[in-house]
């Protein structure tokens, strides 16, 4: 006899033939009615509330408006020549209300 491995393909073929020759079950109309009765007993499918999807839809609905707002604010700030650090320093240096740095930032 040849070693087991060498005959693997032969055995595989034989087992495949046997596997595919297995009889296919036949069902009648009664079976179909039984399945439909079980499904009818389950009732209509519940409406799925997928909160993640709903959240995603809500967020994307506002996305164009948010983009327009960001662009408008950026243009507005550029036009104003607004630099936050500069503006803060300017307000401290000019000290219009005669405040000292010590009064502003008490130690």
């Amino acid at each position, binding site marked *: *006899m*040849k070693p*087991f*491995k060498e*005959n*693997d393909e*032969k*055995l*595989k*073929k*034989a*087992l*495949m*033939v*046997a*596997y*595919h*020759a*297995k*009889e*296919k*079950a*036949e*069902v009648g109309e009664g*079976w*179909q009615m*039984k*399945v*439909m009765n*079980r*499904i*009818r007993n*389950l*009732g*209509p*499918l519940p409406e*799925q509330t997928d909160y993640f999807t709903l959240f995603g839809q809500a967020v994307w609905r506002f996305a164009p408006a948010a983009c327009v707002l960001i662009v408008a604010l950026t243009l507005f700030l550029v036009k104003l020549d607004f630099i936050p650090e500069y503006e803060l320093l300017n307000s401290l240096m000019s000290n219009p209300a005669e405040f000292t740095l010590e009064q502003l930032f008490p130690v």
Partner: protein
Amino acid sequence: MLNDSDRFSDVDIIHRVINGDVNAFEFLLKKYREHVLRIVSRHIPYQETEEIAEDVFVRAYQSLPTFKQKSGFKQWLSGIAVRTCHDFWRKQYRSRELPMSSLSEKHQDWLEHTISDQSSDSFNEHSSQKEARELLDWALERLSAEERMVIELVYLEGLSVKEAGGLLGWSTANVKVRSFRSRKKLEKILKKSMEKKGEEA
């Protein structure tokens, strides 16, 4: 003459079912009944086929809201059918009583004859398919539910690793590893039964 299942696409019918028309599911049941029975018959003992096929359609009905149109309804339903068969074997194996019967002499003879030096037609000439099927069932019984399913899909049905993975809901790598291990285990089981016979003789 066209009936409703021909006039409407699967997607139309699915939408009707999801929107509350439970009876519309019967079109899908009628259309895919044979397909599901073919899958279930291959994996499950004959006497259990009807019940498992019923479970497949009930599971499909309950899962309809999660159906994505990417792969098509038939492919999606095939996946449910294969996974239902897998679940059946998991339950069966959990309640399995040990020890399992040993291989009978006629099956050992069949195995010896098949892998002997004779022509490849020897199987058809000298052996009955019944014995081969019984031997296969005997060997598959000794594998786990996962091993059994992967062997049946990849080794016996000849599906690609990707196709088997799609049906079982496993990654390609997982199917590759499991199919390799299962095949080795099956080989070992059959080899052991042959050796046993040799020792007895």
